[in-house]
Every structure is written in C-alpha cells, then in structure tokens.
C-alpha cells in the first residue's frame, strides 16, 4: 500500500512539473494571433522574448502549415538585416508539402554582434507568397549610443523650472459625484502651468483607506486621459498636458502638427511647456497630501510620448520614486532618424518631421537637432536615479527597440529592468502590465 502511494506521489510530482514546463512554453507561443493563408509560417524564437546573447546562435523553430488540399512546392527562405537594412544572413530551402500537412524547421542564424535584427521568413510558391516579419535582439543591455547633449542643457532646464515656479498654480479641485462610485471619488483638477497656461487632469481616490501611493500617468501623443477607475491600491492621477484631452484651451492642434509647434525655436518648442506641465502635476500631488496622497510613494508612468514624459519627469524631479515607461517616444532621436530611414514606408514621428523638413527648405536637420537635443529623452536618462521598468515591443517602428535600449542603458539607476514583447509593435503585451503590477508592489512593498 505504502509503495503504491510512493509511486503515485512521485509519478504525479514529476508529470506535473514536466507538463507545466511544456505547457508554459506552448502558452507563450499561443499568444500569437491565429493566422490565415494558403501556407502559414509560425516562427518561434528559442528564447521566448527573442533576446539572445552575443556569443549565442540565434535559433528559431519555424512551423510550416499547408492550409490547402493541394501538393505545394516552392521555397522557404529567411533574411536577416540590421536596423539600417543591411543584409547579414540569409538562407533558402526547397519546400515540398502535401495538402493539409505541416512540418517544422529549425532556423539557425550564426552569432551576431550586439543590436537588434529584423528577420523575415518568406514562403514562395507558384501561386502564393507570404512574409512574416520578426525582430530579435542580441545582448541589448550592451547597446551604446552617442549623447548629443547641449552644453547648456542643465541650465536650460534649470531656467525652465525657475519660470515654472513663477506661475501661480491656482489649483482647483472639484469633486464629480456623477463620475464617482461607491468605492472611489473622482475629482477634476485644474492648475496653471508654464507660460501661465491652464491644464487639467483627473484624480481618482479609493475610499477604503486614508493614505495611498500614487499612480501618476502622463499621456501619449495627443491622447485624452480619462479618470482611471481600474486602480484599487493607488490614487490615480491622470494629467492631460497642454494640447491633450481636456487641456486644449490654448494649444489645440491635431496629431500632424503637435510635435511641430515652434520646432524652430528651442525656447518656445511645445515640449518645453509639456515637460514643465508634468512637473506642475507633481507640484499638485505634493501639495495635496490632505486628499490621501502618500507623497513619498509617487510613481510616474506613460507609454509612447507618455513614456518620454514619464522619464523626463523622473529625471527632473526626485519626488518621483519609481518610473515605468513603455515604448518611449523620441528616444535617441539621432539614431531614430537613421533607423527610420531604412523603412519602406515612413511612420510617425519621422514621417511628420521629414514632411516638415521637405516643406521648409531653410529648416535643416542641423536646425532640427539644435532644438530637439534639448528634448531627446536620452539626454535626461543620466539624471534618473529611481527604480525603472521599461517595456518595449520588438516590432515597433515608431520607437525602434535599439533607440529605447540606448536610452535605457544611459539611465543612471542600477535598479532598472526591461521587458521585451517579441510580437508587439508600438505597444507591450498584457503580461507586461501584470508584471508591472507585481514589480510596483515589490518596489513600494505593497501587499
């Protein structure tokens, strides 16, 4: 009897452990969207986040499905290029598959130097062509980049802070019972910021407690932030910087022009005020502890433009204790320009910058950088001392992974982590946010 128990116990033990490891791996692959087509290619990197070491062979498992009832012949190939579009590896094999069949191939790419690489998997038959695009990284924590930090960069932002402090905030906090729930109170918040411009935000305070850490969210590019009702353990403060959401009284331009407002004048470029709006938001939080705000536990977060704003806020102000950002926009703007030059079709933000450049002959790229070097988030990175979590999508063309990692590697804080979403473009996966939630609890020791 006892032997039977031993046998059953340890058999179950081993089976469960093995099955769960396999299940976890399969689960990772199944997060990809189901694809359709005559012949389907499903590449899976050996490293689940598609990040490899520089001395490591890059391995992909390529599943090929013949979705038709016909015998198919042709070729399957892969092409690896750098971020500049330079070919560094390629191979082709003959394809012969019966109808409704599948096969699995192992793709081996020789070790590559540090960086990110685009890998295209292609299938070509007499009547069908398809390409699946992926990106893998090689030791991205070793990516370096040149800083183009103006000599008077610190003085420029010090002066900006001085000018901000001259503006009386005249805070106005108004409770909105119609938006509040039995568990949370919703307030609209108004304040005056840099240039005496009115900006607004939303504050959501849980009712079941007296003091909460703060989730301070700053917006993406011309995105309207609404009251964040999803956060039970934090006070949620969502600030619409000038020109975003309900802060469009003065600046109200569309997405095609927002990043161009006064771009030819570094003193008046729109992001000077935007960055200062984020600091003004902090001023608001730190002067309203009476609303239950734990001013010693403020974390700032944002995605895309919000990622850049979050980083700049953390860099300029030590009242931010934790920084999380996703796909930070404008990072390493010089290299962003180089990488974007290799795209078949231009995308934001250089689509807008290039258009402006072409329509304004006097506005050279040198002039562009003379302004933007004061605003490139990478130039703020060394000033970030708090814990940092960054998420990137490897297929992102708006914020190329190489630029995001260059920014990340310049951050002074040693308490920093990054998460790669291998199948995401200008976004991160849902799992990233689950991890971010745990990560924040760890940093703030929240139960």
């Amino acid at each position, binding site marked *: *009897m006892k032997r039977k128990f*031993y046998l059953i116990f340890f058999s179950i*033990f081993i089976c*469960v*452990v093995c099955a769960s490891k396999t299940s976890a791996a399969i689960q990772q692959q199944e997060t990809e969207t189901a694809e359709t087509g005559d012949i389907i290619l499903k590449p899976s990197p050996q490293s689940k986040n598609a990040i490899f070491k520089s001395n490591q062979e890059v391995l992909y498992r390529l599943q090929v499905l013949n979705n038709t009832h016909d015998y198919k012949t042709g070729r399957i190939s892969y092409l690896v290029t750098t971020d500049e579009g330079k070919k560094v590896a390629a191979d082709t094999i003959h394809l012969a598959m019966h109808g409704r069949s599948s096969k699995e191939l192992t793709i081996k790419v020789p070790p590559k130097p540090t960086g990110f690489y685009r890998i295209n998997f292609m299938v070509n038959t007499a009547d069908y062509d398809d390409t699946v695009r992926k990106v893998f990284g090689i030791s991205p924590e070793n990516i370096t980049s040149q800083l183009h930090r103006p000599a008077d960069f610190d003085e420029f932002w010090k002066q900006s802070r001085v000018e901000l402090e001259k503006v009386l905030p005249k805070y106005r906090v108004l409770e909105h019972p119609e938006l509040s729930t039995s568990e949370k109170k919703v307030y609209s918040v108004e304040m005056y910021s840099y240039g005496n411009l009115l900006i607004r935000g939303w504050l959501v305070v849980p009712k*079941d407690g007296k003091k909460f850490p703060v989730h301070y969210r700053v917006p993406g590019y011309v995105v309207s932030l609404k009251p964040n009702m999803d956060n039970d353990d934090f006070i949620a403060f969502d600030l619409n910087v000038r020109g975003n959401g309900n802060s469009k009284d003065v600046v109200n331009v569309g997405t095609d022009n927002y990043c161009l407002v006064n771009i030819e004048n570094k003193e008046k470029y729109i992001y000077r005020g935007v960055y200062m709006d984020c600091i003004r938001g902090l001023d608001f939080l730190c002067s309203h502890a009476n609303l239950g705000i734990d001013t010693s536990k403020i974390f700032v977060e944002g995605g895309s433009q919000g990622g850049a704003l979050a980083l700049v806020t953390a860099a300029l102000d030590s009242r931010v204790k934790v920084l999380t950002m996703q796909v930070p926009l404008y990072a390493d703007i010089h290299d962003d320009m180089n990488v974007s030059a290799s795209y078949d079709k231009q995308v934001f933000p250089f689509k807008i910058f290039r258009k402006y450049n072409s329509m304004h002959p006097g506005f050279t790229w040198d002039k562009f950088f003379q302004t933007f070097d004061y605003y490139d988030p990478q130039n703020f990175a060394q000033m970030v001392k708090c814990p940092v979590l960054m998420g990137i999508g490897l297929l992102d063309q708006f914020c190329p992974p190489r630029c995001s990692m260059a920014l990340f590697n310049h951050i002074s804080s040693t308490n920093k982590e990054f998460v790669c979403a291998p199948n995401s473009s200008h976004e991160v996966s849902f799992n990233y946010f*689950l991890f971010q939630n745990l990560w924040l609890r*760890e940093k703030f*020791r929240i139960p």
Partner: protein
Amino acid sequence: MKQTATVALCLLIFIVFSLPFKTYAGFPIGKYRDIVVPSFSYYSQTDRYDINGNIVKGQPGARFSSYSTSLFIGYGITRRLDFIASVPFLYQINALGKGNSIINQGVGDLVAGLSYNLVNFNYKRFLSVQVSGVVPLYSSNNGTSPLGLGDYGSEIKLMYCGSMPGKGYFNTELAYRRYFDYQGPDQFSFLVTYGYPVTKHNQISIDLLLFRSFSDNKAFNSNVFAERDYAFFKPQINFGHQFSRRFSLFIGGFYVPYGINTGVGYGGSLVAVFKL
C-alpha cells in the same frame, strides 16, 4: 496507556489541522515582502474511528481537547523564492472521565523551509515546490512526547494555485512528509482549496484534505507510536474578511466524516493574516 495513546493520536491529527494552509498556499509572497500569520485553533473529540473506519464510542466523560496558537511567517527572498517557518504552542486537556484529566502544554514542532515558484502561468497561476524540515522544540522521553512525535522530519510539497475563470481562486497541494525514525511515519496528503469572493472584502472558501500516514507499527493500544498509522478525510469551510490591505481575518470550522484509526474530530480556527 490507552489514554496516552489517544492523546498522541489526537495531537498528530491536530497538528495537521492547525497548519495555516489557506493563508499562504502556493502563491509567491513577493520579493522583500513578509507575511505573518498568527492563528488560534480548537480541536475536540470524544469518539474515534477504528482500523476499519467504524466509529467507536468514547468512554462516558472522556474527551480530548486541544487549544493551540501558532505563528507562521513567510518572507520573499526573491520573486520566486520564499522562506517559510511555523511554530505552534499547544495546550491539551485529556479528560479521562470520572473527573480525572491530563494537561500538557508547550511548543510543538518547528517547520521551516523554502518555497520556489517553478512556473508562473501569465501571472495568473503558479506551480511551486516547497521543501521544509521538521524540528521538535520539546524534549521527549525515548521519542515519546504529548507535544509531538519527537522526531526530526522533512517534507516536500508541490503546489499549484491561481485564479479561476471568472471569480475565485484555487489551491492544490500534494505533500509527502517523512519522519526520521525507523517506524516513520511516512505521510501523504492532498489538499484542494476553492475560494470565492462574495463581496469585495468577504470571501468563503472550502478546503478538502485527504491525509494518509503510514507506519510499520499499526497497533492501536500497544504504545504511543502505535497511532502512527492512520488516515482521514477532512472538509473545512472558512469565512474571510479583509479589514485592510494588510490585515485579514479568517474563521473556519471542520469535521472529520471519515477516518481510519483516528479521532472523530471537529473544531475551528481563527487565523489573522498580516501582509507587511
């Protein structure tokens, strides 16, 4: 001797019952965070199950009661690795009938070990393994003590837990414990817990525990170690209330509807959970 044997039997069962399963379960505690779980438990029995699972009535006036306080602590060393430890303090009254009773009290077995999260399934479900040691904190006479087996031991436990689709959570634990004595015992247990939030701050949970303890010595009356061979099934229902993010309280009750060579026990527990 029979009464002494009964005490030991009850004690074994009680120790199993008093572990704070539901408060820690297989969920990783989280790096740098602590969980402290003081608890109070009550166990009582008058009748017992014989070797065939039949109920044998106790003698008139005879009753075994045990009151225990226990302290469980857990600390997240890393995101995957937790340190856990628990120690009980026992107070037992063995009423023999006719006004006679025996009282024993003292600290019981320290259980300490490490729990490691093997796999996390999208941060929703977790598979963990726990290895721990058992150290008796009381003196025993030739391995005999009313406060425990008096032997060192070790345990390995596989835990799978997480969220249910929709509302609620579950926890399953498969454990094997071995005491380092020539007679063992070797103990296998399987626990299933299902918890359901009835409101944001209140929950109901059900525990189902199957327990089997093997020993070469199967006699009931010959000596105290004769009671090392037994089995039981124990359902328990709990109600939990979250007073704050850091403090919750659980109250529960249990009954043993089936057993072999064990007591027809019932009782309850009050468990406080502090997350620091």
